[in-house]
């Protein structure tokens, strides 16, 4: 090819590059950082968005809007009528779901656009809000950064301490479709400040079922992910007249490593799961005298017994509500496929009948810097 011809072709390429019709300048964009969905008393869908305002003249640092619409896309059109720029969905950090929305089964279909439109980010954190989403979006504490950033940071740090789960839209999609697990999302409430409540467990249809408190979440997280982030337990040690004292017999442990083995069997018409969990932990706090050097085996036994009690309490709570946030269904599928196939479409019910045994094996690795 001649040089002139080559040049011509290359310049033609550059000519067309600017022709992509999807270009949006940053000045024209309203970057949504937080989106919310709720239902009002008349069962109409409400959509909210919060986006930062980059303008020196504006007094407030973010704008929040709520509209009535039938779908996310329709809501976007309505919102575009109000916000300065064009709303973009590629940077959403959190999707807040209202309490009333989660009373309706099949609300999950509303989120279709998140997974269908390739431009939506699937890394937004899913949040259950205990109250009306509108309250949250119009909440402007003076001592906090932009609400959307504050909430995301709150979730991420709470997740680091394992006080709540961190479920991204992609994870949520998996949990909704996976037959052997119930979805779990962060639960948030608002009193004087925004507060993490724990973990909301949803039914397979997506309705809200139960709340796991922080210690329960910690056990759940430990089961699901092993030791990730910081895991600290405070365990009561049985002692005479404990309830009457101000300083109770408590010991706190920080988990150093954890590994689990699940043994799955199917006997007598129900599933049996035996969870063996090996911990290595260090004592970070002890509120009563104890001769660790001599009796550390006793201590391990006592803590083991307490952990087992708590875990089994948690399982019973979930079984009563017919939810399986642990994903025992996956183990059932992997190790007892023939039986699983019979119950797969109604796993939470089958799980409610199942027998779960928890065997913690703690080994105390450290005692802190004092005796």
């Amino acid at each position, binding site marked *: *090819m001649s040089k002139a011809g*080559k040049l011509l*072709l290359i310049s*033609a*390429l550059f000519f*067309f*590059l600017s*022709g*992509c*019709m*999807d270009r949006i300048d940053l000045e024209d964009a309203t970057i949504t950082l937080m989106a919310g969905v709720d239902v009002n008393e008349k069962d109409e869908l409400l959509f909210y968005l919060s986006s930062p305002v980059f303008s020196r003249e504006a007094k407030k640092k973010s704008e929040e809007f709520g509209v009535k619409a039938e779908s996310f896309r329709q809501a976007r059109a309505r919102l575009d009528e109000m916000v300065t720029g064009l709303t973009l969905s*590629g*940077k959403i950090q959190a999707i807040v779901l209202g309490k009333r929305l989660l009373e309706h089964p099949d609300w999950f279909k509303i989120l279709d656009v998140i*997974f269908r439109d*390739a*431009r939506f*980010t*699937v*890394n937004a954190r899913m949040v259950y809000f205990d109250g009306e989403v509108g309250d949250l979006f119009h909440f402007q504490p003076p001592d906090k950064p932009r609400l959307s950033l504050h909430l995301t940071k709150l979730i991420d740090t709470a997740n680091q301490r394992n006080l709540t789960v961190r479920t*991204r839209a*992609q*994870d949520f*999609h*998996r949990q909704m*479709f*996976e*037959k052997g697990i119930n979805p779990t999302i962060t639960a948030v409430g608002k009193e004087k400040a925004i507060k993490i409540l724990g973990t909301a467990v949803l039914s397979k249809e997506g309705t809200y079922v139960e709340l796991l408190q922080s210690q329960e979440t910690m056990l759940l997280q430990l089961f699901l992910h092993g030791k990730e982030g910081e895991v600290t337990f405070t365990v009561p040690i049985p002692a005479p007249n404990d309830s009457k004292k101000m300083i109770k017999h408590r010991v706190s442990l920080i988990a150093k490593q954890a590994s689990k083995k699940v043994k799955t069997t199917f006997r007598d018409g129900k599933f049996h799961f035996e969870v063996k969990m090996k911990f290595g932990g260090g004592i970070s706090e002890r509120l009563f005298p104890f001769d660790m050097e001599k009796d550390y085996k006793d201590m391990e036994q006592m803590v083991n017994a307490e952990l087992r009690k708590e875990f089994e309490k948690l399982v019973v709570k979930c079984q009563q509500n017919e939810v399986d946030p642990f994903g025992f269904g*996956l*183990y059932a*599928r*992997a*190790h007892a*496929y023939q039986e699983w196939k019979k119950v797969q479409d109604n796993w939470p019910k089958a799980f409610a009948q199942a027998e779960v045994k928890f065997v913690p094996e703690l080994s105390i690795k450290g005692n802190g810097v004092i005796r």
Partner: protein
Amino acid sequence: MKKYAFNELTVLQYVFFIHGTQVGIGVLSMPRELAEEAGTDGWISILIGWVCATVASLLIVNIMKRYPGKTIVDLIPVFFGKWLGMVVSALVACYCALAAMTVIANGIGIVNVWILSQTPGYVLAILTVIPTYMVVQGGLRVLGRYAELIFYLTLWMPIVVFSILPYSNWLHLLPVLKDGWMPVFSATKSTILSFLGFELAFFLYPFLQRKQYASLGIVVANTLSMLIFMHITVFSFSFFSPDEITQYTWPTLNLWKVIEYRFLERIDIIFLAFYLFFLSTTTLPYMYFTVFTTSQMVGSADHRKHLFILMILIVVGAWLYTPTFIDLKKWSEVWSMTGMVGGYIIPVIWWLAIQLFRRGKGGQKG
């Protein structure tokens, strides 16, 4: 005899040429297609498909060994005579053109869905056609170099996929062979088609510099492709729940969507941009052999004129008509069917014929 000497390929170029042709649009949808048929046992089908493809490619190399210095296009008139040969050559050209078009149209379609949803297809077609022309006009050796270059340039991609390891759950893959062998075999049908591309050995053999590596090279190419398919499929299966994966059209792209770094989000977009290189190593060879065949038919040694006409046709075609996603699916199906014939059935029949012929002649050279 040495008609193609000026365009010889080294062994590595030959390997990457075939490997590049094999890895194309299939990778994007493969995990879903396998999961639909065989659930999470689909990875076994890849192994079976690999064995089939390797056997078929070895047959092709064996066949071509008997006709040194000749491509399939040179052989067709010998076997079918002038006029029928024309028809068969035209069919071969059509097959290559169909393959190239399917991949280009799919590539444009995916870019339209994933990155540039407002940009019309013909603009993307023009943007694709210009670099395509610039590479293909250089002939086979340039294509070989291009394939090798792209292979090195995209080596980072399988490594980045490892960053989804923390999210993967290997329980999804258990139990192995959950519903027996039948679903695995039925999924094999789609995997053996993913390996299509080795049939280009029909064209490539005379161009190869050192013919003694022809068989080894094609096995290596097939194995490389198998490793890539396996890597993507196993990671997708471990990441997505088996109940969920069938929801996605292109699970491989969704896999990339969750990878996020502090300094970089939306890696799927970058992946897709690089993926166009992968697609190009599929389209360019097919494109080249389309015009190679047609120009040989009219007896001209210069393929560039035909290439130029083909490029114009693509742009005009894209301008007049944007294929719907259903059309794209149909094109792929037709390509698969013809590929089944060209890549598997013809080599087997031909090889059997040669064996019979040899026996009939009492061991003489066939």
